[in-house]
């Protein structure tokens, strides 16, 4: 729709898009409508465009998982509590940012588990032995998987009804033994923050693993409260993300060194 051209031969696709969204301006829109009423070529093109965009409209958005509302709250609640503190605003950082930083610091200051701390660092900077890099990658991979599995279980616990708990028992037992190993390793390495998170996770896992065959709604609510009140899901989620980031960094370092 050239401004100087009151009756273009045909409209371009982009012009038809603007017309469809009512973005071509009042005078041009009138001219376009008139043109479309008598030009079969442009009318056909416009009709095809409308069909395509109608198909886009009709396509559903993937729904969040069942119990999403509860999960959203479980993630949000611990951060909201932090938000209340006035000191946060005095730092000029948003509570979300601070919560994130805090959680990341938990992991970073712990320097990540056994790999880094139970094995001496390479003597020459920038020349890490391939075996050390590979060991770190494997450790990160294991820890990341453990945290992902733990996170998935916590989410299911939050969103499930009481009947679902016994089904989680075996899974909790498996996670429990791994979790103890990671917690002990973190303790040996002096990473008290990481120990705290894994310790909190362990208490929930113990409750599930040692729970009764028949779980009452009250028991279920207690489990949920335990997860939510400590912000455990949020903490585990942050740790899992950080581990994945570190894992990717380790993969890149391994690629460069090979």
């Amino acid at each position, binding site marked *: 729709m050239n401004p100087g051209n009151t009756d273009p031969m045909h409209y371009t696709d982009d012009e038809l898009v603007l017309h469809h969204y009512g973005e071509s301006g009042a005078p041009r829109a009138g001219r376009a409508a008139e043109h479309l009423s008598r030009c*079969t070529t442009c009318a*056909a093109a416009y009709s*095809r465009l409308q069909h395509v965009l109608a198909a886009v409209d009709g396509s559903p958005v993937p729904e969040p998982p069942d119990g999403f509302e509860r999960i959203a709250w479980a993630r949000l609640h611990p951060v909201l509590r932090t*938000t209340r503190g006035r000191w946060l605003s005095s730092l000029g950082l948003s509570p979300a940012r601070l919560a994130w930083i805090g959680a990341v610091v938990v992991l970073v200051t712990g320097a990540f588990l056994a790999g880094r701390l139970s094995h001496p660092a390479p003597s020459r900077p920038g020349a890490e032995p391939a075996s050390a890099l590979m060991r770190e990658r494997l450790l990160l991979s294991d820890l990341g998987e453990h945290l992902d599995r733990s996170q998935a279980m916590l989410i299911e616990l939050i969103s499930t009804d009481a009947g679902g708990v016994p089904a989680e028992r075996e899974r909790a037992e498996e996670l429990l033994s791994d979790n103890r190993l990671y917690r002990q390793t973190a303790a040996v390495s002096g990473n008290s923050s990481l120990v705290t998170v894994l310790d909190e996770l362990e208490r929930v896992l113990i409750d599930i693993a040692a729970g009764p065959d028949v779980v009452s709604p009250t028991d279920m609510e207690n489990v949920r409260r335990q997860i939510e009140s400590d912000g455990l899901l949020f903490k585990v989620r942050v740790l899992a993300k950080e581990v994945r980031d570190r894992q990717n960094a380790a993969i890149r370092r391994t690629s460069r060194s090979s």
Partner: protein
Amino acid sequence: MPQTDADTVALARDGDTDAFRTLVERHSRAVYRLAYRMTGTPQDAEDVVQDTFLKAYRQLGRFESRANFSTWVHRIAVNCAIDLIRSRAHREAGHDATQLERCGPAERNETGRASPERLMLSTEVHERVQAAMSALSRMERAAFVMRHFEGHSIEEISRALALKTNATKHSIFRAVKKMRAALEPLVASEAPMAGTERR
């Protein structure tokens, strides 16, 4: 009788955490859908949901009781999604429209018409919309979602995304072009196939 949003907001403003929880539980699913449309991944959508309600919580004092909470939180969600999108300037490049034309061959017979099984067709259309949306760059996606689904004007989108008007237009044009490349072969059977020689 359940409380209205306005009543619940009033309680939440007074520090009632359970009231805010009610608001989160009422609106988080809708915010997720919007966030998913704008960001394209479940993880990003979840992050946007969290950021949105955090901001809403902090800004409850500014919420006007006569306003609609859903609309208000929706607007915050759009901004949070935009922040996330803009913070990822190193976004992956979108796929070519030609790639989309090749992705997932449409079920067509020798006449070039779509398969008569409408259910299958519908499923395929949905899959193709998802694929085409995934193939958009973050800016294209944000601009297109804001224009097509949210009804924002190009001027508003330009301001929100910090783009020039022409850049916004071209983001939308590219997005529509990709949608057409992915979907036109499927939906063309329902649309007129008149002349193709246009300026």
